């Protein structure tokens, strides 16, 4: 699938860029390439080949049973005009619904994770007894496989015997149980809640690592000057950990854009929560439309690739501006 391919491409990028010339002698450059060669070959095989194949299929009318007799049909899977009507993924309202859901999911869940992760990290960075234990405990949601945690949550969110409704009712917050995964205005939020629960620890961990690298002299100076801790946070801590935050957010955004399992387990194929990956899977696997599904996968890949490039470009620019 193209999504896993993007992962590999990301890691491939630094490897592919040529080492600076002049500083290394020719033989050393050659040796470097020699050492890199096996990895490049493996990458081409496991990431490049499936990606190219997916892109190729997106230009054909392939279906599962006729994979080997597929015909080239140009851009028809993407967009075509026939008999006064538009066809193709780009004319498919369900695809655009999936794009909207994915963007909403990404924006809301990553923002929530960023804020909550920051709070957790600040708490964990403080000195208190049993800190190591709490740190380990916080990581548990992240350690549970998504499928398992999503299934667990789907029972907890059940409208009739779910514990969440039970708790909210006994606390007097709700009068009647909510159908978290069935109500079309709640289901996407339910997905966001489960994702935030699962990935906030990851965010917290990255931020905590950044916090622990901070120089202590700034803080001592601030304390001597009697500056309010909130001000210290916004003026000292935040700017210093921004690079780490950018990395964390990049990771999470890329992950969130190709979200699949949590949505599939919680709400299956419902159009209310369908993400781009769920859409592509449905076309590819359920409908056997390899061509059409590949077109959707390719669009998802392009989308993520372009966003990554834009994000890296902007991030670099901002960092340079800051420095």
């Amino acid at each position, binding site marked *: 699938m193209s999504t896993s391919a993007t992962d590999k491409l990301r890691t491939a990028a630094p490897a592919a860029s040529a080492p600076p010339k002049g500083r290394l002698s020719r033989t050393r450059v050659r040796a470097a390439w020699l050492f890199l060669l096996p990895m490049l070959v493996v990458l081409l095989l496991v990431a490049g080949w499936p990606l190219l194949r997916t892109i190729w299929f997106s230009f054909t009318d392939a279906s*599962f049973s006729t994979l080997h007799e597929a015909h080239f049909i140009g851009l028809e899977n993407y967009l075509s005009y026939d008999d006064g009507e538009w066809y193709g993924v780009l004319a498919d309202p369900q695809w655009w619904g999936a794009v909207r859901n994915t963007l909403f999911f990404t924006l809301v869940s990553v923002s929530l994770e960023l804020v909550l992760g920051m709070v957790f990290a600040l708490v964990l960075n403080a000195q208190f007894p049993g800190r190591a234990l709490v740190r380990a405990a916080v990581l548990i949601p992240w350690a549970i496989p998504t499928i398992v945690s999503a299934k667990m949550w789907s029972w907890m969110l*059940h409208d*009739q015997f779910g514990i969440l409704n039970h708790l909210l009712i006994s606390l007097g917050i709700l009068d009647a149980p909510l159908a978290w995964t069935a109500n079309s205005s709640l*289901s996407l939020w339910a997905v966001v809640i489960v994702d935030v629960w699962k990935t906030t620890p990851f965010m917290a961990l990255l931020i905590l690592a950044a916090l622990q690298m901070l120089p202590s002299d700034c803080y001592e100076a601030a304390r001597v000057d009697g500056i309010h801790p909130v001000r210290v946070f916004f003026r000292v801590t935040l700017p210093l950990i921004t690079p780490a935050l950018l990395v964390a957010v990049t990771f999470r955004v890329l992950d969130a854009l190709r979200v699949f399992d949590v949505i599939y387990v919680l709400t299956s194929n419902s159009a209310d929560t369908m993400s781009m990956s769920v859409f592509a899977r449905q076309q590819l696997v359920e409908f*056997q439309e390899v061509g059409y599904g590949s077109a959707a996968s390719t669009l998802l890949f392009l989308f993520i690739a372009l966003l990554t490039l834009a994000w890296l470009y902007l991030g670099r620019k901002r960092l340079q501006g800051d420095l």
Partner: protein
Amino acid sequence: MKTKYLPLLGLVMLAPVAHSETLSISCGAVGAELQLCKEGVDAWAAKTGNTVKLVSTPNSSTERLSLYQQILSAGSTDLDVLQIDVIWPGMLASQLLDLTPYIKDQAEFFPSMISNDTINGKLVAMPWFTDAGLLFYRKDLLEKYKLPVPATWSELSQSAKVIQDGERQAGNSQMWGYVWQGRAYEGLTCDALEWVYSHNGGTLINAKGEVDVTNPGVITALNQAKSWVNTISPEGVLNYAEEEARGVFQTGNAAFMRNWPYAWSLAQASDSPIKDKVGVAPLPKGGEDGKHAATLGGWQLAVSKYSQHPQLAADLVSYLTSYEEQKRRAIKGTYNPTRPALYQDAEVTTAVPFFKDLYDVFVNGVPRPSSISGDKYGQVSNAFFNTVHEVLAGSQPADKATKDLQHKLKRLLR
């Protein structure tokens, strides 16, 4: 390999006739299915001296099909015997073994089911058990409120409301009137087809092969179903499959339930809170001039074309669909036999009294438009259940949604 071992290799290759082999079968796990399947398979294994591995598959038939398609299109030898849905033989035929030479007693099955499983003259699967949607009701509650078994959907709505209100006042705040399958999956296609057909709205595609989903029967049916959500049915029903609905009914928190026959033996189990309180009837009619409708379901056993032991696999299929095995499954798990003779068998009719009463419902089930839409059926059904789901959830009015659906299905089947 050294050449001196070659004769030895030849011996090994000839040997399997005497060897015990390992087969794998995938059977469902809805209700008591897995347990019954295991018992049947073990009996065959003990009889023939082979071993059989049970491969677990997803409960949702939509997901199970995806899995099969992946396994089969990869030409995998991992699965020998597959349990397949009544609507799949057409879709999977090219990957399945022709069972004609192996099955001797074809004539003892319902002819309609054998013909459903015969694609281009090849018997690609054997009917294992048949299914039809049924109305389960609480006998004790109908008695308590002096209500008859509902004959029309409006009667059902009213009775459900009366019981729900009464029971809630009596202290059960969790009580609901009617539970069914409302998740966006194949099961919703079955439920919705029953509503539509009972309102004389047809079966989505008419006899001439034209898409017909905008007639008044369809609109009335969908609007009526929508009126249940949040009144007599919990909102969560929009994410219920079979087992979720049964969960609510079997804990005693619903007056009526739409489900398949398997739910009966589980409701009658010794640890069931509603034991001896459950009645079974045909699903209601659309109105005075409507008709009773039950979507035809059922599962078949097929042998993968890529199986390394086709003969043994076919023998296992033959054993599992035999008279004795189907009888055991009927008595123990209320799985409807696919052999008419079993509906006359005294032991079966004593164990499951409604088999005899509802015989007509089972034989006259409404088929889904699977053969007419061929390999596009998956998409037709998907478009249909998604539209129905949108209407039920209130995100689209029925008349607009069905117009869009008409357009979509026409495009699909052009």
